[in-house]
């Protein structure tokens, strides 16, 4: 039997192709939205994976260090390091700031890491160019997405830093590129006040009779020195011994150190389930609307294409074509349109995805799922046209 659908498509291939391309651009937008969601999830996941930590120790009762502010003293790691099952600890400070680069404002996450010993948790796991930070101050490693080049001097708050290394896919949960600096610099950036604020703070402390007693020499100086110190970090990253149980060690830390410790699974829950939950619902709603719009457009196109063939369908019915032959022709055309649309959509999403400011992750399983959904939508949308075709009276082929 002749494949009527393919013959019709070949006969009017230009119209069919351009219709498919139009549909494909819409499907491309839908796939991109799914990719944006996947990118958000992946940003959260790489943040967790690239930190190299098994546990995150933060200020008690907070969801820090990424979802909520957390501030703990930078010497608590000593006590944590002594707990059984802890192999390595590393202080880390995280701070999102706006900085100028190339004449444009760029949002970056400053990450303070301990540079005294390589391999501590918190440091970037690999570099694409350059070397690790070796000096205690004013060297930085930047994510390639920040646009910085090796050897470039960048100004962060009050100091200039030299980019000594570049890394890749090191981003915050919001997709902002990371810039790694020595911990002490990050503490200064995050906690140390500027000069005017320090002068004001000293004057305020000096005016306080509790700190400025004539009979206690050195008290005022000690109080002012204490206020000017930046001795806090956001988290202590913990790497566990191979045989250690994360929940057990986290429980020990919480029990003895009056801190909160999150395991990797808990941190994934915070970053992926909680932090992007609203965005996920937002994107989900948008995907549903796009799916409905796609279905409506496919239904309209197939319906219009079918109505343009009323006479041919009437002739087919008159000369004895069964309903299944006619329905099959319309269904195959709808599916054909879906295949063209999906291919165009997938290629389009792949081409324009990298141009998006945030990471767009197009997963093969999403493409397979998207293909199945497009085919289902096309099949369902063709039902309207099939219904219309089957109701065409074969007598329409006969005049009068």
């Amino acid at each position, binding site marked *: 039997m002749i494949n009527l659908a393919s013959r019709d498509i070949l006969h009017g291939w230009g119209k069919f192709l351009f219709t498919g391309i139009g549909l494909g651009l819409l499907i491309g937008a839908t796939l991109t939205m799914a990719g944006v969601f996947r990118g958000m999830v992946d940003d959260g996941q790489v943040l967790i994976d690239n930190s190299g930590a098994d546990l995150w120790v933060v200020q008690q009762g907070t969801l820090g260090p990424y979802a909520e502010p957390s501030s703990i003293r930078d010497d608590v790691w000593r006590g944590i390091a002594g707990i059984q099952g802890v192999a390595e600890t590393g202080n880390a400070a995280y701070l999102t700031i706006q900085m100028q680069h190339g004449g444009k404002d760029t949002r970056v996450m400053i990450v303070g890491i301990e540079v005294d010993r390589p391999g501590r948790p918190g440091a970037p796991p690999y570099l694409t160019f350059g070397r690790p930070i070796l000096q205690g101050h004013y060297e930085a490693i930047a994510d390639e997405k920040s646009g910085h080049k090796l050897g470039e001097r960048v100004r962060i708050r009050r100091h200039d830093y030299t980019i000594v290394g570049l890394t890749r896919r090191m981003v915050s949960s919001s997709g902002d590129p990371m810039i790694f600096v020595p911990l002490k610099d990050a503490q200064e950036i995050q906690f140390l006040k500027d000069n005017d604020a320090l002068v004001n703070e000293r004057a305020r402390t000096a005016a306080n009779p509790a700190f400025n007693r004539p009979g206690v020499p050195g008290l005022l100086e000690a109080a002012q020195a204490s206020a000017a110190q930046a001795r806090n970090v956001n988290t202590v990253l913990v790497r566990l011994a191979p045989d250690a149980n994360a929940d057990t060690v986290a429980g020990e830390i919480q029990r003895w150190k009056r801190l909160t410790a999150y395991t990797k699974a808990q941190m994934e829950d915070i970053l992926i389930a909680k932090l992007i939950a609203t965005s996920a619902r937002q994107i989900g709603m948008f995907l549903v609307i796009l799916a409905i719009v796609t279905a409506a457009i496919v239904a309209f196109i197939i319906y219009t294409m079918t109505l343009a063939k009323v006479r041919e369908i009437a002739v087919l019915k008159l000369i004895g074509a069964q309903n299944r032959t006619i329905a099959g022709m319309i269904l195959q055309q709808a599916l054909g349109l879906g295949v063209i649309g999906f291919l165009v959509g997938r290629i389009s999403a792949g081409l324009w995805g990298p141009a998006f400011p945030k990471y767009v992750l197009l997963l093969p399983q999403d493409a397979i799922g998207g293909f199945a959904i497009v085919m289902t939508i096309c099949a369902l949308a063709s039902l309207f046209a099939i219904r219309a075709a089957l109701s065409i009276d074969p007598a329409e082929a*006969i005049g009068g």
Partner: protein
Amino acid sequence: MDNVDKPAIRLSGLKKRYGSGDAAVDALKGVDMTLWPGEVVGLVGPSGSGKSTLLKCLGAVIEPTGGRMELAGEVIYDNEWKIPDLRALRRDRIGFVFQAPYLIPFLDVTDNVALLPMLAGQDKATARKRALELLTALDIQHRAGAQVSQLSGGEQQRVAIARSLANHAPVILADEPTAPLDSERALTVVRILNDMAVQYRTSIIVVTHDEKIIPTFKRIYHIRDGRTHEEAGEGRPL
């Protein structure tokens, strides 16, 4: 042939009423008609006389409201359809030629003709062989691979005639087949219909207003106000 002594079509008191009550219109009020195998007869009448209704009843496209129809000796309607699958009846035993050829534009000439046997279950090769036979008989085999849009009106009508013959239908219903053609081409089409009727022992009813071709029929049915009467035609040689 088995049915050589049986009429290809016999209608007895065929009626068709549209609507009901005060709005009822009797389009056919008891049509009697007999056609013999290999015969070409004309069906003429003014607009609204019931020509198209009769053709639709004969083509099993609409259901009559009374009377009896026989096709090649088999009763297909006797106050109700006696055949369960009317599409199969149309596909296998009735050929249609329309005022406009109504070929399928996305199929080439051969496949337009081969489609009918394929719909009846024949394999593609056999169906296309049959199509080429008919296209050769109609002297249009040289356009076998052409697209419909590349054919002239007369050529398209020949392809439509070939399609109507593709399943060896004993009856062909031709609805104003020469209307869009000039005199020469119109007479050519009628000659082809006559030749095909003789060659394939097919009965052909030609509904027409065309004064050029009416004299060519040996028998003519006039239809007026839903009733037919038969008269002898001139049977002018083509």
